[in-house]
């Protein structure tokens, strides 16, 4: 398993697109947080506000990491490198497990780095302009922890969708359109049908509860950790279905 992980890590870091996507995923929150901290009135932003900004912008980081994980596996099918991969490691579940571990690790590591660095950047800039920002406690802090967990789960979701769908544009489209379109549509239909609390059972909305920095404003979700666990469960189900598909189909 260690050898397979090492091999997958070499694959990951030797494709330029992964480097470019990682830079964009890291740069996006940094730029938004940096510009906000420079332009806003320093007195208007405390630690909780900054945490909310960091958490919110880091959701995009998570999505980009999901795209990267999806493209990582779909490109294996697209370029047929899945064949030498399985020829070198015939136990397919070992390869899939290594890819899952790597996706989660990259999602968590990049997510954590983004949160820590962007909060530190925002706090430094604001405090340099006579602001008074310190690391918040409670929900605000948990929201920043939660968005790191969110990034790790979305990375795993990207891998699962990629294994199921195999085509890069289609897998990425599903990953992006699922939260932006599909869940909104489903929620709207269910709401129109008179089911008012249906939103809490939408996987992606539940996952977003992980990043909430004010739980009182999110009473219509399952809550941070329950919602996160539900999102994780759906992701694991997608991943398991994808793994079953890859294991039982011709490579």
């Amino acid at each position, binding site marked *: 398993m260690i050898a397979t992980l090492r091999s997958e890590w070499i694959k990951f870091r030797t494709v330029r697109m992964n480097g470019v996507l990682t830079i964009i995923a890291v740069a996006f929150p940094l730029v938004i947080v940096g510009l906000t901290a420079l332009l806003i009135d320093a007195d208007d932003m405390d630690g909780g506000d900054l945490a909310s900004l960091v958490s919110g912008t880091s959701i995009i980081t998570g999505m980009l990491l999901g795209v990267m994980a999806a493209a990582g596996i779909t490109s294996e099918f697209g370029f047929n490198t899945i*064949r030498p991969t399985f020829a070198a490691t015939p136990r397919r579940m070992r390869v899939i497990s290594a890819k899952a571990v790597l996706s989660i690790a990259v999602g968590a590591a990049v997510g954590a780095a983004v949160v820590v660095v962007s909060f530190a950047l925002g706090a430094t800039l604001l405090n340099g302009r006579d602001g008074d920002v310190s690391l918040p406690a409670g929900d605000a802090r948990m929201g920043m922890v939660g968005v790191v967990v969110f990034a790790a789960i979305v990375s795993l979701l990207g891998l699962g969708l990629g294994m199921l769908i195999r085509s890069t544009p289609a897998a990425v489209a599903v990953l992006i359109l699922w939260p932006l379109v599909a869940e909104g549509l489903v929620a709207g239909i269910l709401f129109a049908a008179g089911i008012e609390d249906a939103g809490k059972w939408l996987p992606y909305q539940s996952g977003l509860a992980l990043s909430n920095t004010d739980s009182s404003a999110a009473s219509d979700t399952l809550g941070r950790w329950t919602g996160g666990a539900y999102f994780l469960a759906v992701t694991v189900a997608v991943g398991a279905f994808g793994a079953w598909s890859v294991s039982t*189909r011709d*490579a």
Partner: protein
Amino acid sequence: MISVNGLTKRFGSKFAVANLSFDVRPGRVTGFLGPNGSGKSTSMRCMLGLDLPDAGGATFGGRPYQQLEHPLHEVGALLDAGYVHPGRSGRNHLRWLAASNGLPLSRADDALSTVGLADAGGKRVRTYSLGMKQRLGLAGVLLGDPGTVILDEPANGLDPEGIRWIRDVLRFLAGQGKTVLVSSHLLSEMALMANDLVVIGKGQLIEQCTVDELVQRYGDRWVKVTSPRAQQLGEMLQAGGATVQAVDDTTIEVRGPSAAEVGELAARHQVVLHELSNQTGSLEDAFLKATENVQEYQAGALR
């Protein structure tokens, strides 16, 4: 030693490979021949567990491929030189392969040197010619110094020097006692390269024999005679029931009697012979005859 036993693979209702069985012996180059669409590549993918067979399978030294813990140490396979990420360098392609089987990453550079790509290892595969990709693929095969080598059309895209190099490499590997299975549609190459042949058509075994046996069994054989009185000798042979074809005024090709019989007839009639030799057709002729009933795609006559 590779043993393929009852290998069967269906795509929908069409049998790509049907109950195929053959053995590949160590120390010899075994050519895997068949017309386009005969199931060679599917068979190879099934042997490596990439396509999942509907029945049967292959063993390598008695074990199925999926049970090999570090397969690159035992079986090196090149199914298609295009199975590489174009954005990755050749060296990094070999490095992830090496890492997957616990090989030191330095093996990548050794293998690149062996195939003559030492200077191009850092370049992205996108910039490689097809011949360079074939060499990179062969480097991947050699990474783990395996006892068995499986190559699907390794000469594709290679220039004459490259084709000769592949031939020398495969004969060298077989000379070291390794088991070598190689498919190719270049029959003249196969004639020079292979000792044994496995010929399939429409997914079924047609022949497993040596190259010489296939030519003997299916190839054309005739006696070439050159003589100042070739025409007269030809008439005498025809009168005896032989089929005679004139090549020019002094040369005829005789089918039917042996060279000895032709020589004795000439001696009896005091016909001077300048040449009397047995001729056999090419492997290509033998192959086409062996597979004439199982060609998937046959061209119509040119008009």
